[in-house]
């Protein structure tokens, strides 16, 4: 576990101010309990016109379109979009493999999660942060309002890496307990022995809007390994003796690319948001540029 971030300020004030003006774009509209700055599918008392429908008994007369009645001699009701708050679920992978890299993937994931949480809180969305590995390790209750960001920071710093990744079981457990749909942001290195597709299928099944943030380290993309090695899996301690040859390294790199392409292809197929980054990529640029390019922020 890399606890070096525990006492480190994740973001300075200047960075937080920049994030304040960013907003999260949800690809779908979600129903909410409180008014917020999000449009939902539910028609309500908002100011922005949404649609017409035929008047039925009991509808509010104030929303009848009288000009249409004079033209068509039919009672037609104007519908308005109701602005509601958004639920954002941050699934942070805290398996042992996330401690790998310099800086570690978990540290990078903490900062991404903190930044997006702040943006969500600033836009009056409900933010949930869930730490998972081979199950739900810890969960933070829904937070709303910018003032709760420090609570989120504290929660994130207390996350420790450990355990094997089993995203499917983790998501299934969480989704069955929390039925409310929302934006599920999965921040992970995507190394799951059971395959990430089945895990994302769970989120899709519960009709969440999904955004995958795939974090990789340079050591994984282009490992600088030579000679006779015993490779030990950090999650399950399974070891394997191999001789690193240039051709083997090339094969690994090709396999890594194939793996990433498979995830990206899956996300594209089901219209899931996907962004891949490496741990030494400047964090500020990632937030301000990569997410904008990936249509995550506007």
């Amino acid at each position, binding site marked *: 576990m890399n606890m070096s971030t525990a006492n480190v300020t994740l973001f300075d004030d200047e960075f937080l101010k920049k994030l304040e003006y960013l907003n999260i774009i949800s690809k779908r509209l979600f129903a909410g309990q409180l008014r917020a700055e999000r449009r939902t599918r539910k028609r309500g008392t908002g100011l922005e016109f949404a649609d017409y429908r035929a008047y039925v008994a009991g509808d509010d007369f104030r929303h009848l379109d009288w000009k249409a009645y004079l033209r068509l001699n039919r009672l037609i009701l104007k519908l308005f979009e109701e602005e509601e708050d958004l639920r954002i679920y941050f699934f942070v992978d805290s398996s042992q493999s996330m401690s790998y890299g310099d800086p570690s993937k978990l540290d990078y994931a903490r900062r991404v999660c903190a930044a997006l949480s702040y943006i969500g809180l600033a836009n009056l969305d409900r933010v949930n942060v869930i730490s998972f590995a081979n199950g739900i390790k810890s969960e933070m209750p829904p937070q709303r309002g910018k003032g709760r960001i420090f609570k989120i920071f504290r929660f994130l710093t207390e996350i420790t890496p450990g355990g094997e990744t089993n995203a499917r079981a983790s998501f299934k457990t969480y989704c069955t307990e929390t039925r409310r749909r929302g934006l599920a942001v999965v921040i992970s290195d995507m190394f799951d022995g059971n395959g990430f597709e089945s895990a994302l299928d769970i989120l899709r099944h519960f009709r969440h809007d999904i955004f995958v943030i795939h974090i990789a380290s340079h050591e994984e993309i282009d490992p600088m390994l030579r000679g006779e090695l015993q*490779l030990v899996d*950090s999650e399950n301690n399974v070891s394997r003796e191999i001789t690193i040859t240039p051709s083997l390294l090339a094969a690994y790199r090709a396999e890594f690319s194939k793996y990433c392409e498979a995830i990206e292809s899956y996300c594209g197929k089901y219209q899931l948001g996907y962004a891949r980054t490496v741990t030494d990529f400047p964090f500020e640029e990632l937030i301000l540029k990569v997410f904008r390019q990936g249509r995550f922020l506007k």
Partner: protein
Amino acid sequence: MTFLALTAAQAGLLAAITVALIIGLYLLKLRHRRVLISSSILWRRVLDEREWHSLWEKLRRIVSIVIAATIALLIAMSLARPEVESLTGKNERIVIVLDTSPTMNTNTSDGKTRWQHAAERAKSLLDSGGPTTEFRVLDTAEVTSSAFTTDRNEVRKLIDAMAPKSAEPQFPRVDGQLSQVYFISDGVAFHDTPSVVKRISVFEAANNVGITAFEIRSVPSTPLGYEAYLEVQNFGHPTEAGLTLSGPGGQRVNRTVRLATEQTYKEVFDLSQFVGGGIRATAQSKDDAFPMDDVAFAYLPIKRKTRTLLVTKGNRYLETALKLDNYVDLSLTDPANYRESPNLDAYIFDKFAPNVPPARPALIFGTPSASWLKPAEGEIQKPEITSWSENHPIMQYVSVHDVAIERAARIDAGNLTVVAASKQTPLIVVSEKPKWVMLTFNLESSDFPFHIGFPVFIENVLAWFNRDQFALKRSPGVVDVPLANAQIRTIDGKLVSSEQQLGKTIFLANEPGLFAGAQGDTRVHVAVNLANPRFSDINRSVFRTDRTAAREQFWLRRELWFYMLLAAAVLISIEWFTYHRRITL
């Protein structure tokens, strides 16, 4: 397979230790470094896919160990110097004896000589055998005798440096039990060789007309008259030969004779018209293959009598001997009337000696009292001659072993040369400078004048004093001149390098020629001639056919260890290349 440096058991032990060591080191080397990775999912996929499709992945470790063990075994076993008879031949010793007798200079029909053919055959022998075969080269002149060596280039250089010698050939002592002996010869000089010797013949029949004898001798009936005896023999097909005798003054005698096979032509030539000096005889014939015996030399002494003064009160034996000597112009005087004269060549003092040494050489009998002579220190009764020097010119052909002496003076020889002595005193002493000879006994008190060697002795002494002599007869090769520290020149005056050996001067003369050795006033001529029918008969070979089968040649020219190290080096290079590309471990 056999091993030259180790026993089979030692070699086996070495191989076992080497293999065990390599496998041990390899296992140590194969202990993998532990590296923690985030996840092995991708590595597992890559490895499963590669190993499933690649047999090489499964065999790689075994192949790597086998290569490493092979390299180590090749290096270790090369130390044991293995030998595989089918590849490199067996370890054997070959002695090559090259006939360097004069007949090997005979020309052959292809323009070469028998010697050149012999050298080629010897070199082809070097190409046979395996890399461990040791060679030794010997000649029949006892000049070349190499040690056993596997270095063929060294032996080739040695053969190139060899040449036929004119010395009397002699088959060297070789051990035919421990080595194979090959004798390359024309079979002329050697008719009997040890049975273990394998003969390689370079004989080819050829024509030769050679001078088998040539000498100048006195004519007994004519004082200072000389004649030349020439003997020529035809050893080839019937042919016509041109004979020539030429002298230093341009005198020349020619003969043309028809010679049948094996026919000998002998003639005595009158040299009365020749002036003193070197005489050259030549024999010319068509297709003569052996030029060495086509020329011969002799020396014609300059004709002059020795003007001798005998100073005596009367000595009948001495006077008679001198008067009978055709080469002596004798004068007589008694001691009282003795006067030195510049017109004299030598003095003979009988029991008398002048107070000052004469300017010319002197022969002194008795031990007269004179300051320049050794004084008598007593008298020895009946001394017995126990030692004498036959090599000194004055003692040649003189036997004194049975000379009886009644009494002799005892003297201290000092730095004089003693040529005859008893146990008690010197009996004949010689002074080189000034030149004189003294007998420490009187002729009357011995029977020396009655001996057949006495006139020879007188003649030798007078000749040694200053008379021109016939040339000494020598054969080509190492020539000795019975003069210490003599300077040797050819008849043309060119200096010949020489060495001193036991009071003689020796030099090398491979070709016939006339040489002059000078030491102070003393001058000796040496006629070096082959003049030997045994050598001139170049067709008298017993090696008519080559009975020796060709030796087996092997394609590996070096010992097996060389190729093993070479293979190890190649394998190391391959291993280095494949290891760095992680093809092997």
